[in-house]
């Protein structure tokens, strides 16, 4: 190879890559507004982003998969936890994570900051990003909704859930109130016995969680709810 060829490779390679990259950058900017729903990027959401950065949340958590890998990814935190649950974690992590082997620092957030961060996470959860992350994929929620509908006809637990209007706060599949933790999420972590026990007195297990108690349900009814929820966990892949 002559020096001339070498120079040609340098300038050719660099300019091809740079031009392609800059052209696609321009086009990506044209599409960002639609893909990220920029019309919903309110002042409160931006304040939430500022609060999120002020407290360095991203150096433990990932969001859109970027950041530190110490704590769960927050891309779909809003759709899996719901507003009230996120609030509780932000306001009193020392209670929310009392049993956890990994703790979250108490950041002494103001009431406004908590609201702003919730709004920010709600906005993030709507970003169209090729359905990442796989464990919170939209498709998976939809599949579990289908499962629930199929199970509801035969499950006594589903009838109790309907009767007590659990989905006014909780999420299941594409329906629910976006206030409390998603059923699929509970299913991954808890068994039916625990859920039945929790329903009797939520404050005992999660002080300050704000969920009403269901002592009027019989143990059998509570266990049927527990079995219904526990059955939503996906034991083997997609």
């Amino acid at each position, binding site marked *: *190879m*002559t*020096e001339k060829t*070498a120079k040609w*490779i*340098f300038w*050719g*390679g*660099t300019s091809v*890559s*740079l031009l*392609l*990259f800059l052209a*696609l950058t321009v*086009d*990506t900017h044209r*599409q*960002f507004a639609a*893909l*990220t729903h920029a019309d919903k*990027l309110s002042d409160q959401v*931006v304040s939430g*982003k*500022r609060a*999120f*950065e002020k407290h*360095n949340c*991203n*150096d*433990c958590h990932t*969001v*859109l*998969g*970027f*950041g*530190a*890998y*110490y704590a*769960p*990814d927050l891309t779909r935190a809003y759709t899996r936890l719901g507003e009230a649950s996120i609030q509780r974690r932000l306001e009193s992590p*020392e209670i929310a994570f009392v049993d956890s*082997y*990994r*703790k*979250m*620092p*108490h950041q002494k957030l103001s009431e406004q900051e908590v609201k702003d961060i919730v709004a920010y996470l709600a906005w*993030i959860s709507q*970003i169209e*990003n*090729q359905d*990442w*992350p*796989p*464990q919170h994929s939209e498709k998976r929620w939809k599949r579990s909704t289908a499962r629930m509908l199929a199970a509801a006809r035969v499950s006594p637990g589903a009838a109790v859930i309907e009767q007590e209007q659990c989905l006014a706060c909780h999420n299941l599949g594409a329906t629910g109130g976006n206030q409390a933790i998603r059923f699929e999420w509970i299913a*991954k*972590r808890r068994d039916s016995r625990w859920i039945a026990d929790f329903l009797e007195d939520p404050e005992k297990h999660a002080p300050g969680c704000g969920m009403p108690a269901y002592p009027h349900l019989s143990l059998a009814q509570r266990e049927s709810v527990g079995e219904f929820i526990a059955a939503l966990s996906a*034991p083997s*892949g*997609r």
Partner: protein
Amino acid sequence: MLYKTQRIAYPYFVVALLLFVLQVIVGLWLATNYFATIPQSVVDVFPFSTARAIHTNLLVLWLLLGFMGATFYLIPEETQRELEWPRLAIAQLVLLAGTGVAAVVGFLFGWTQGRPLLEIPRPLDLLVVVGALMFLANVGVTIIKARQWTVTQGSLLGGLTFLALLYLIGIPFYNNLAVDWYYWWWVIHLWVEGAWELIAAALTAFLLMKMTGVERGVVEKWLYVELGLFLLTGIAGTGHHYYWLGAPRYWLWVGGIFSALEPFPILLMVVDTYRHTKERARPLRPSLTWLYLLGGVVLHFVGAGLFGFAHTLPQINYYTHGSQVTVSHGHLAFFGAYVLLNLTFFYFAMPHLRGFPGGTYDEKAGHWGFWLTSLGVLGMSLSFAVAGVLQTYLERVQGQDFMIAQRPIRFWMFVAFLHGLAVVAGVAVIVWHLLTLKPGAEVREPAKPAPEKVAAQPV
């Protein structure tokens, strides 16, 4: 050492090495956070996030100070001219090291920009920019006035300018998170797979010319090709970070194809180094410096090239993105590509800076340092890789909850911690060895053609 102002490199190397020690100690604490339960009272005061900000910022700071020191050593010899403003170079070191220390202390009190790897608060960013301008002016004016243009100088100055410009893109506040990450990667990716590669290639070319005696024309011709391939694959390869952040779908193609080619320029670097080493006109002395150079080239390829390729394709990255797989790649790539290169340069330059006859030195302890650190980082990366594969399967494929999937990972983080102990020990040996370097005991004839006698040294 031929020029007086080359001596400015020395304080840069010393500060860089001390920060390196601090960085790896904080790393041990981070690993501890993963396998042990840290009580709430400690987490409230010194959370993982603060320690991580310190660990990563110290890394970047010491590597950059090392590169700057290396540049100050290289420039007078390449341009055959003293550095234009030696006092400015010292002021720049004081400014940048001071800014770095202020940032680290600030992190402890919650003063942060709050964006991963770019945590340095915005007011301090301005001081970094001032420091970068001082550096570029000093080096640029020296090169321009000397009029001894070489490709090595061009690559170095180009890389440094590129680096400084990209830093500016990381300073503003972006309202839209997707846009924020889009440009965040202009700093992070285009630094390590663009600007820093230019600097690394230039420093490696310089070391090869000095250590092998191979003709400049040959080395620099291949430098052109390497740089061309680095930038061809590296610039558009940024797309491998744009798969899942809310950017259009074509980035899966662009990122996938270009970044799949990224190992090739690194492979070419390995081949070039091997070829120049074979065609050398001088003996492989001092053997420790050579060990560092070759070790760095090989681990650069393994860590950045192979470990990077392993999870760069979108089909795989969909499951591995944002997991410990990234951590595994990050540690080995940084170590192989930039840590070992810096240490190679320190080992190459120190004997000259200290005026040892024949550029040789007492190597013994240094070999322990190299093997402890390299095997430690390699073992650590493999532990992270096991943790990453576990996380990918349990959390991403099976759909287990994050905290449940993390349970079996704790053991592998403990294994990583044990390797981390070896790394800290190795780094302590390296730093102590470099700072107390002694002339080679068995050199009897310091004059140039004395390879046979030097070869009698124990390895």
